[in-house]
């Protein structure tokens, strides 16, 4: 009786959810195959073509539509995301490792770290920019001030992921290693790290993706040279052509590729984790 009413409602809800989630992307995807260069960013599709993809890579004959100014911005964003990923993950692992032991002021430190993802991005960005310009007196760059803002933002995510992983980590393998005469540093490198690697991978993915499309903090903190989200935003103020959609599809495919790599690496780790679980069942 209950399911007769509830089921259709839930089905509709899920349908709407998926529509809103993927709808915009599907529309963009379709429009990216608009005829060029005269076709605009709206329906109907005059005829299907890959013109805008060719335009993106400069393979079309020159026309009145300027190429998308994203080349350098893309490199900048990838570099920044990579730098942020490495720094935030290293800090996250180290901080989470520290939290395995109770220490004085642990609660305060925990909230200070987590604050980085709670504070509104616009405030962090503005604050960073004011600090750089007026207090310290340095120029803002995507690789300095914006990088700092990104690390402050992504570090808590990496930290929380690692905290969850280490929370379930059985410390006796580390003790076993120490008792074999292996130093704590080597133990971390050869025992702990390989075992927490799935968590590290997740932390890296979080930090990379969050940094890659970060907008509000970067807007204020990055100075003259723009990152990709800023550059794309910049093109909107002029005139929109379907080349931006083609670019959107390309970056999405890139994200999927990233996720696939993550998925494969994770799958390998999970297989190993399953073996470990089996091992505990036997024990």
């Amino acid at each position: 009786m209950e399911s007769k009413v509830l089921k259709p409602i839930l089905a509709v809800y899920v349908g709407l959810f998926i529509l809103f989630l993927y709808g915009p992307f599907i529309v963009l995807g379709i429009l990216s195959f608009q005829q060029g260069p005269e076709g605009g960013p709206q329906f109907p599709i005059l005829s299907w073509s890959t013109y805008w993809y060719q335009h993106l890579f400069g393979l079309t004959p020159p026309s009145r539509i300027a190429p998308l100014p994203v080349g350098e911005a893309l490199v900048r964003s990838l570099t920044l995301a990579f730098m942020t990923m490495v720094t935030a993950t290293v800090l996250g692992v180290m901080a989470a490792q520290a939290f395995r032991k109770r220490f004085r002021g642990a609660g305060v430190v925990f909230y200070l770290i987590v604050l980085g993802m709670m504070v509104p991005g616009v405030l962090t960005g503005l604050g960073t920019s004011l600090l750089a310009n007026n207090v310290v007196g340095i120029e803002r760059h995507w690789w300095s001030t914006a990088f700092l803002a990104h690390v402050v933002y992504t570090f808590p995510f990496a930290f929380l992921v690692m905290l969850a992983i280490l929370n379930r980590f059985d410390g006796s393998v580390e003790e076993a290693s120490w008792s074999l005469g292996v130093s704590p540093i080597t133990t971390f490198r050869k025992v702990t790290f390989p075992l927490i690697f799935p968590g590290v991978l997740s932390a890296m993915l979080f930090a990379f993706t969050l940094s890659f499309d970060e907008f509000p903090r970067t807007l204020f903190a990055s100075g003259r040279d723009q990152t990709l989200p800023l550059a794309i935003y910049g093109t909107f103020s002029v005139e929109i052509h379907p080349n931006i959609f083609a670019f959107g599809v390309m970056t999405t495919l890139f994200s999927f590729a990233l996720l696939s790599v993550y998925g494969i690496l994770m799958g390998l780790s999970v297989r190993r984790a399953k073996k470990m679980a089996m091992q505990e069942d036997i024990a």
Partner: protein
Amino acid sequence: MAYDLQLTNVYKTYDNGTPAVIDFNLDVEKGEFIAFLGPSGCGKSTTLRMISGFETVTSGDLMIRGKRVNDQLPEKRPTSMIFQNYALFPHMNVRQNVLFGLEVKNMPRAEANRKVDQILDKLGLSGIAEMPTARLSGGQRQRIALARSLVVEPDILLLDEPLGALDANLRKSIQNELKLLQRDLGITFVFVTHAQSEALALSDRIVVMNAGRIEQVSPPRELYTRPSSQFVARFIGSNTILPGTVKAREDGNVILETAFGILGGANRAGIDAHDGREMSIILPAEAVDLVPADVPEDEMRANFGSNTIPCTIERLQIVGHIMHMIVSFVDGRKINVEGHVDKYRDRLKAGGRAFVAWKSANATVIDH
């Protein structure tokens, strides 16, 4: 006398003020097999972890081979630990697990491999050397843990409930292997367990612990026959405890006035048993003789003196040539008694009456 391991006035107090180990004193000779036995939370594992260096010593001296190691890091100590969950490295195969301790010490590859082969062979693991540890049985994994610890040649091997996760049959066989291995290698083993059968079967001396303190340190047999405290008497073996007050002394025995009459036991600890002192007779199950009701009283007196308590036979079961009985006293207390079938055949039956009797020399008196 040089000891392998010495703990002198060792205390462990946790940061929140909870005392875990109180005034622990123990000298262990090289090659001894020592068991720490006690209920969970008695401080036995904490003591082991202090020896290994995983826990700090709050006060007192911890010496290994005459050297104070209180402040030495775990990896610098000549000890190696075996864990209840084995703590094998799940990302390494059997050989890599065993090789690990040698590898990081930069031992030449050939020598390291030779040592690993040797120990794998000794523990019967050669056939599975290249297998991942995940699919192996508990017994095999326990042996891998042993091989991994022994290959680095520790002076002292620490074992934290190493058989706890194994099933009963396997436990017995690994127990035997462990004992043989220890004799063979001649290194000191310190073994933590809450199972008295393990401690009694394996060790040269047993340290019985309760609530952070040592209750008694004795060879297994003595612990069994001469418990020195109420706790040990209750914890080890199956003893009947009969409280009373001292009435007299004769030939090293103490005579108590108890609820069951005038009863005696040997004063092994040499306690000053003055009249009126509150003491208990500890009567081990093996010391108990069951006397059928048809035995004439003079004969019983001649054998056991006044050490007789009337009882009712509740249950009676014959397994092979052993007769297992449960008898009850007038106060409702039940005890287990065993005896050879021939001795009791046709003279005892369930629901019948008999006497629990013993010779004073086979029971022990301790302070109440």
